[in-house]
């Protein structure tokens, strides 16, 4: 490892612009002649739109246009799509209602847009929006899963009787029944996985700029995957063909999944820009983010686990209801199915698993992937079951896990996934040592003498990342491939540009991706730049989500680097009159091994571009590209242990210690990996203790600002004790597994297991607010 190579804790290249206020986010961009959009949104959870009167608004100062959903239909702008087809157990395709970008007839959640005002400033647009009169005829609404599945419940979409999108199954039901019939012990658990609002700190924004002469659109947008946005806008929404649409995602202020999806606002901004003949800017406010950014989680599950007399798991049966909200968002259908049920084996040898997942519509904001996407729900369920089982079977929870750990790899689970490698005992050992697990009983006794209830909670998570082998996901219903692309350009002076289809919105790619180049060529990272986020600059790529940017994106860069290096070695060998096989690359030079003959990279690059003396038949230039399609998912795994105290008088939880031992395979930049874990852990702790997106019985959101929705703050969470155990991923040449989602996947079960241990009551739903904990302690 060089000072800037793989494994080095290199300080981030991108930081200077962020710490000096020079970041360039969408809302920072101003275009000449730019107008501003303000959306008129439904205040009802379910209603007919009987009419929209914009006559008064159109007379107000600065108003350019008021556009409605009916005009969208007239202009044949397509409805929003769901890109993953799921088939129900009866063989029928999932049942979906249409989702227009602005509702022409019916609104189905509070915040759904019905019209947009375009004006000279945001304030003037907002003023005029107040003068637009929308005539609603209110309809009865269903606000949660229970209400949606009741017989006689109000129906959202005629296409989906009973508000049911699909009833999907995975696994061998007969084998599971047989396991339960022979079980020595059965453990049962009902779990609610609370609905969360993603809340990236930068609200979504879009600027659309139509050039009438060229019939060309430019869209600046807060996207995790600008090429996917362009593809969807072109292929399905009828906005413009791909070569007439440039999508730029500049600095993006966090995503966590919520900026994967193509939303109504950017579609409307593009369409409106052509209609008014000027650039149109929309910047959401925080309440719009709560109302319209796709939410996460929201499952209700009943699960049963069968054990033999030796405390070995013999079967698992899971029935989950998943809330999709009012419409099927872009990847929503895959989240509670292929990203959830396929992980239900956890870290354990479970011979038979059967899962049934029923997806339902409700009159709430659409639900889709949020950091972890299905995997936190699976991990939380399994780890709560293991804890419940340990308590019921009266065995140590860590030991029960060890008894059931998978120890042989590769391991084929009964739910599709084939785990390639891992060492679950090693991470549990590391976590138990870090927290002094053996010393816990003494600490608990001491806390008791101080009037505090101390608890310890273990969570051993596994996830499927490096999303994903295209053929595999295609066979499961995905509408896209999930490879990644890269191009390596060595300039004539020897500096290097890496064009990647990945997108950085906080992950630090501008540093880590350069570290690979530094590792291979021995050049300083200052001579390398990373280009991303602009469909006019970068070849088609799939973007960043599912902890895929290192395992898939960086591997694509490696493949392109290998091609480039191969050509450069031929040029060097020719110049040095040596055999290509004898050329090695060190410290930015191409050397003839065992001699002092060498030629520096800039000279090789210059030779490639002057083309005065290249090997016979070689093309000039030094630029190579690669597309990399992974052969399997990767399987990051680890053990988290949380120790905390509960004040029995108030129900308040205070952290004592939180340790995380993760196996991410090879780390490119440990500093950045640790930062990813810290952030993920706090999102998991936020779910466990604080966060809950709540609707009242009429579908009115109760938590639509930071005054009502409890975001984790600095004094709500502890500092963390992190460590790593390593098994290299055999599926990609760098051995990388991915680290972006682990914290959010593993943390919440550790917290709830610790609180329920402290209060000696097993049933406690998230978020475990002081009020809820106090009531649980004092319940009869």
């Amino acid at each position, binding site marked *: 490892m060089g000072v800037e190579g793989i494994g080095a804790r290199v300080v981030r290249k991108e930081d200077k612009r962020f710490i000096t206020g020079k970041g360039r986010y969408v809302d920072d961009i101003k275009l000449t002649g730019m107008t501003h959009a303000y959306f008129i949104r439904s205040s009802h959870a379910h209603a007919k739109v009987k009419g929209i009167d914009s006559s008064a608004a159109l007379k107000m100062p600065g108003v350019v246009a008021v556009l409605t959903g009916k005009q969208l239909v007239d202009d044949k702008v397509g409805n929003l799509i769901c890109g993953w087809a799921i088939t129900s157990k009866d063989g029928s395709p999932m049942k979906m209602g249409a989702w227009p970008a602005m509702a022409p007839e019916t609104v189905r959640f509070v915040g759904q847009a019905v019209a947009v005002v375009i004006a000279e400033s945001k304030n003037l647009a907002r003023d005029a929006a107040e003068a637009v009169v929308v005539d609603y005829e209110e309809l009865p609404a269903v606000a949660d899963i229970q209400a949606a599945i009741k017989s006689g419940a109000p129906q959202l979409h005629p296409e989906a009787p009973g508000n049911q999108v699909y009833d999907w199954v995975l696994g061998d039901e007969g084998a599971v029944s047989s396991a339960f019939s022979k079980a020595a012990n059965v453990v049962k658990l009902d779990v609610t996985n609370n609905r969360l609002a993603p809340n990236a700190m930068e609200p979504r924004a879009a600027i659309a700029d139509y050039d009438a002469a060229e019939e060309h659109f430019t869209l600046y947008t807060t996207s995790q995957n600008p090429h996917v946005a362009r593809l969807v806008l072109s292929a399905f929404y009828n906005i413009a063909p791909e070569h007439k649409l440039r999508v730029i995602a500049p*600095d993006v202020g966090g995503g966590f999944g919520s900026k994967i999806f193509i939303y109504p606002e950017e579609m409307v901004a593009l369409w409106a820009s052509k209609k008014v003949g000027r650039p149109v800017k929309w910047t959401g406010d925080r309440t719009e983010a709560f109302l319209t950014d796709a939410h996460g989680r929201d499952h209700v599950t009943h699960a049963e686990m069968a054990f033999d007399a030796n405390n070995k798991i013999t079967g698992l049966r899971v029935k989950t209801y998943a809330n999709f909200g009012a419409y099927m968002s872009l990847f929503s259908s895959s989240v509670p199915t292929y990203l959830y049920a396929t992980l239900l084996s956890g870290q354990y040898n479970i011979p038979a698993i059967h899962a049934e997942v029923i997806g339902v519509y409700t009159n709430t904001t659409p639900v889709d992937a949020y950091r972890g996407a299905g995997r936190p729900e699976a991990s939380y369920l399994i780890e709560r079951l293991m804890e419940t089982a340990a308590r019921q079977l009266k065995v140590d929870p860590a030991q029960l896990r060890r008894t059931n750990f998978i120890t042989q790899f590769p391991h084929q689970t009964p739910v599709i996934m084939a785990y390639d490698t891992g060492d679950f005992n090693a991470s549990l050992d590391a976590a138990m040592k870090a927290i002094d697990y053996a010393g816990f009983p003494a600490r608990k006794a001491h806390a008791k003498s101080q009037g505090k209830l101390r608890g310890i909670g273990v969570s051993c998570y596994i996830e499927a990342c490096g999303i994903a082998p295209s053929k595999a996901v295609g066979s499961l219903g995905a509408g896209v491939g999930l490879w990644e692309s890269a191009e390596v350009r060595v300039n004539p002076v020897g500096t290097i540009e890496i064009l990647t289809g990945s997108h950085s919105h906080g992950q630090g790619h501008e540093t880590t991706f350069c570290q690979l180049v530094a590792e291979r060529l021995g050049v300083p990272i200052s001579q390398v730049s990373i280009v991303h986020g602009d469909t006019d600059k970068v070849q088609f790529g799939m973007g960043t989500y599912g902890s895929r940017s290192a395992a898939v994106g960086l591997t694509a860069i490696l493949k392109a680097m290998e091609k480039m290096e191969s050509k450069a070695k031929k040029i060097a060998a020719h110049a040095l009159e040596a055999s290509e096989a004898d050329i090695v690359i060190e410290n930015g030079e191409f050397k003839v091994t065992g001699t002092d003959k060498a030629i520096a990279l800039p000279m090789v690059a210059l030779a490639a571009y002057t083309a005065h003396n290249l090997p016979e038949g070689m093309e000039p230039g030094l630029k190579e590209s690669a597309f990399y399609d992974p052969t399997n998912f990767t399987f990051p795994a680890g053990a988290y242990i949380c120790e905390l105290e509960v004040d029995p008088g108030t129900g308040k939880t205070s952290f004592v210690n939180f340790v995380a031992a993760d196996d991410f395979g090879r780390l490119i930049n440990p500093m950045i990996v640790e930062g990813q874990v810290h952030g993920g852990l706090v999102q998991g702790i936020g779910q466990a203790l604080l966060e809950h997106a709540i609707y009242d019985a009429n579908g009115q959101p109760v938590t639509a600002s930071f005054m009502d929705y409890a975001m984790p703050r600095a004094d709500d969470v502890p500092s963390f004790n992190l460590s790593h155990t390593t098994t290299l991923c055999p599926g990609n040449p760098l051995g990388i597994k991915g680290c972006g989602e682990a914290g959010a996947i593993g943390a919440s079960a550790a917290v709830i297991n610790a609180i329920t241990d402290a209060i000696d009551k097993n049933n406690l739903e998230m978020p475990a607010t002081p009020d809820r904990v106090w009531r649980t302690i004092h319940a009869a």
Partner: protein
Amino acid sequence: MSTVKLTVNGKAVSVDVEDRTLLVQLLRDHLNLTGTHVGCDTSQCGACVVHMDGRAVKSCTMLAGQADGANITTIEGIAKGDELHPMQAAFRDNHGLQCGYCTPGMIMSAIDIVQRHGGQLDEATVRQELEGNICRCTGYHNIVKAVLDAAGRMKVAQAAE
């Protein structure tokens, strides 16, 4: 419309704005100082924190007119040329930022925290004082480290002056 006269990052400026204009709008829209961000509109997240007469304020929650005659410092005004403010350097060195959106407000709040507490800062105090700044990326771990690190650096810098 009103004329607001104020000093921003050491420069005297005079801006004609609608009376309802917020200080953050004046900075971002009229002066193109886009380092100051808006994250919540309800004075909760602190992405908009700037210094007014040396104290941290949330610029999304005050009218531009209320800053008439004031001395405003934004994230763009704390480095001395190429030399970063110790708080900026500490955020970079401790990986106290990821997406960067909350960072300007965090840094401006953190400078105020260190100034108010002198060198007497510990982790619990930093966490409590950061209650008005929300970060979704870092989990705060490295932000707390950065503030404590900068508190030491600022003490040294002060002693050197």
